[in-house]
């Protein structure tokens, strides 16, 4: 018997060896299942990454993409299933294990030390040293060499908090290259980039492919998949719908797989005659947090009832400051803001809210939600003080519950435990839906929506666009701030282009083109001095 066992082992060993040489897959995730309280995030998912391919992972928010990648990167442990590299089963207990296997990841929210320089961030954790003394010169040479080779231009001595988001992303990519990772995971890398930066990133990714690196690319954006990916795996509600060759498929088919139904890319919108002026901004200037000059300079515009006015521009041209001044998060240094005929330039936030302002904030985690509160507590965040929800300072719990349940039903907010779900445990798309439900259902005349679709999938985007248009059709004024050109063109009735804190052009989306809009956004063209 022992003898037979030995022989069997020998045979098995041989099979393993053959596998290593034969396997065309560099990473295989087989039958991965992961359950969180109340939600099956990954249900028996199998994903196989070929060596040297760009493999897109597509799915709605909450479909389980991030969970799956977090398992591969060692941030979570799968409840069951197996991960293999080159056909050999491996255990990935933490990101260090992943790193040792050559797996690197660029997270959606960058993991950088803000006050360190680019170079310091890149070498962090794997500092080249001799007896504990840093060998910065060597590190610098290696970083510069990599940056040269892949066209990732960075200034190694710049401090992270001072450089643009696009630059920060390059630093994250260089971090992976410095660690000589061969499997690169990009978690929604284009969500924060300008159109030009996206093109550059696509080029960089093609360069990696040429070098034989394998890329896993999480995204919602079908255009990007069509542009760079070889194959695409689609997830839907935690399940794997299938893997397709990108060249044999179409955008429409992918979106159908992703959402489980047909999606229209066009926003249906009937013509509207704008009514009275709801918001009026005159000569508004807002100081910058980063430099001594004003971030918003002498801006004037009106938003009327029944129209969607879009502030278009490349990120960092004063949109955030402009909205902060309108919504009351920051004080302007000059000018006036009038809402429904009432001067609110110096009014506090509660007064603005009572006067008729609803605000879908740019950062849903920072401003939009109290993540440790339940969904129902978040649903009344703007209204808890109203007589409907409180009596002599005591919260009317039953009314809060009923109201939350009504909003959840009406706006299709999905979560594990209904009104009692902790907001933190919800998916990004549903968190955003909750905010939108809260802000739209609140009595308002003006809806300020700042990048309401950032980081969301097309199903959710379609939904949010519909809600914005519905709000407009109900005779509300909508001020939309967006970085997405497609969104700007599809949704708005009037476009104001902001460049370096000034409104440089007012365009009609029906009469302009994306190219022309791009010229205004980049400062190459301007109408208004």
């Amino acid at each position, binding site marked *: 018997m022992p003898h037979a066992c030995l022989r069997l082992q020998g045979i098995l060993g041989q099979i393993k060896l053959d*596998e290593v040489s034969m396997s065309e897959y560099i990473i295989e995730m087989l039958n991965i299942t992961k359950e969180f309280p109340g939600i099956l995030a990954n249900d028996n998912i199998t994903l196989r990454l070929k060596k040297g391919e760009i493999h897109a992972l597509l799915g709605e928010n909450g479909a389980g993409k991030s969970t799956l990648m977090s398992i591969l990167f060692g941030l979570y442990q799968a409840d*069951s299933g197996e991960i293999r590299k080159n056909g050999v089963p491996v255990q990935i207990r933490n990101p260090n294990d992943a790193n040792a296997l050559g797996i690197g990841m660029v997270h959606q929210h960058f993991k950088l030390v803000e006050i360190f320089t680019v170079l310091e961030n890149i070498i962090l954790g794997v500092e080249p040293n001799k007896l504990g003394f840093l060998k910065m010169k060597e590190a610098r040479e290696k970083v510069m060499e990599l940056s040269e080779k892949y066209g990732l231009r960075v200034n190694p001595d710049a401090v992270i908090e001072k450089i643009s988001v696009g630059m920060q992303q390059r630093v994250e990519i260089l971090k992976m290259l410095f660690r000589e990772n061969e499997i690169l995971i990009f978690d929604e890398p284009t969500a924060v980039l300008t159109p030009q930066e996206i093109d550059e990133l696509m080029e960089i990714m093609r360069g990696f492919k040429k070098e034989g690196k394998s890329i896993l690319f999480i995204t919602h954006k079908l255009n990007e998949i069509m542009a760079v990916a070889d194959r695409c795996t689609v997830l839907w509600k935690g399940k794997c719908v299938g*893997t397709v060759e990108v060249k044999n498929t179409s955008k429409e088919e992918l979106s159908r797989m992703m959402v489980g139904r047909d999606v229209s890319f066009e926003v249906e919108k009937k013509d509207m005659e704008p009514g009275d002026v709801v918001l009026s901004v005159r000569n508004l200037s807002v100081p910058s947090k980063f430099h001594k000059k004003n971030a918003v300079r002498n801006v004037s515009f009106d938003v009327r009832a029944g129209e969607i006015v879009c502030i278009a521009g490349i990120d960092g041209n004063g949109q955030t400051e402009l909205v902060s001044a309108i919504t009351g998060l920051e004080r302007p240094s000059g000018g006036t803001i009038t809402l429904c005929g009432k001067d609110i330039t110096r009014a506090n936030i509660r007064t603005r809210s009572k006067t008729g302002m609803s605000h879908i904030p740019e950062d849903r985690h920072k401003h939009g939600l*109290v993540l440790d509160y339940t969904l129902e507590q978040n649903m009344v965040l703007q209204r808890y003080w109203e007589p409907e929800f409180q009596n002599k300072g*005591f919260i009317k719990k039953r009314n809060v519950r009923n109201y939350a349940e009504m909003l959840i039903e009406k706006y299709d907010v999905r979560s594990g435990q209904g009104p009692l779900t902790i907001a933190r445990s919800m998916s990004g798309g549903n968190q955003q839906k909750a905010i939108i439900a809260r802000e739209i259902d609140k009595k308002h005349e003006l809806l300020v929506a700042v990048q309401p679709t950032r980081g969301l999938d097309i199903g959710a985007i379609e939904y949010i666009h519909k809600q914005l248009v519905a709000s407009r059709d109900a005779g509300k004024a909508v001020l939309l701030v967006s970085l997405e050109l497609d969104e700007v063109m599809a949704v708005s009735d009037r476009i104001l282009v902001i460049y370096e804190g000034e409104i440089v052009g007012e365009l009609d989306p029906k009469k302009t083109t994306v190219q022309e809009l791009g010229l205004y956004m980049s400062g190459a063209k301007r109408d208004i001095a």
Partner: protein
Amino acid sequence: MQLDIKKITKSNGFSAFTSALLAIGLGLVCGFLVMLGASPENSLYGFQTLLFGGMTRLGDVVYYATPIIMTGLAVGFAFKMGLFNIGASGQYTMGMFFAMYVGFMFKPPESIHWLLCMLAGLVGGILWGFIPGFFKALLNVNEVITSIMFNYIGMYLVDMLITKNSTMYISIKARTAYLPASAQMPSLGIRNSGANISFIIALLIAVILFIVLEMTIFGYELKATGYNKHASIYAGMNGKRNIILTMMIAGGLAGLGGAFYILSPSTIPGASMTYEPINVIASNGFTGIAVALLGSSNPLGIIFSGLFISYIQRSGSLVELYGYKPEIIDIVIAVIIYFSAFARLMGMAIPRLFKGKKSRHSESHDDASEPDNPPEGPGEEIPASDNPAVEASGEGA
């Protein structure tokens, strides 16, 4: 039934409770180890006393628990808003002084004398909580620094005012005089202990705080600010007012703690509690931080953690009988607090134990859903471009 257990184990309160128990258990084990090392032959009896000694002095347990429950509430309540109130000691001392001052210097009708003293303590604490809150709200000065400094300012100020006042201070004995009986709080009538009505008041206050936190819009705003300051601003909450109000309430709670301490009735007729102005910061204020931590800042949890810490302190004073230094109890408490810091971590481990048991239970009914089994081979979902070698090894494994 199964579902009920799942619901309970998932709740926040349960995980806080189990983690506190676990911290206490580990702290006691460490205490035993220290005793074993110090004097092995007495360790069993010593440990027994440590565990059950307090039982013989329940009146004292209640009596000593009252001030630390109050300082615990003072720290815990402010912490719910994200404020770290290190200043409970100063607020406690101020409250004690105000109560004493009214006790010595005012001569109201006897029946309400103690009540007035108590209210004076409340005012003293509120005053000492208001100042750091004011600085925090309007000038954004870190409340940790101001409240630490106000511990010293309060203590030296009180010591100075007491030693200069000949009615309050007996310089030969280097302590305050005995308070008049009318200023002392009504006793609960437990023999040989100072347990008095203040314990009942403390319990009531804890319940009221719990109601404020859970059921009112003030509590809603307070916790929202503690969890996410930016969102509270976005929602138009008046953060400045809430910060000042919270610190005033916290100060008032600690001040009441000081009043309760000094106004306790003495078991010896004609005597009273006294204060020695020897330039030492009141330790009950810092014990309050421990009580709040162990009680997860929950007002009801703080009642139990205050009682427990008082209990173990009483037991600790008894282990001296076996030749141990009473400081050993400080070690045990320190270890318990240390482990409380891991509270959440451990709190999560225990429900998982329950969950693990449950899933094993359900497996016996339904073999198909066994999660720990390795995959028997690729499932149907795997695309057609399958590698036969993989299948072979899958079966071999």
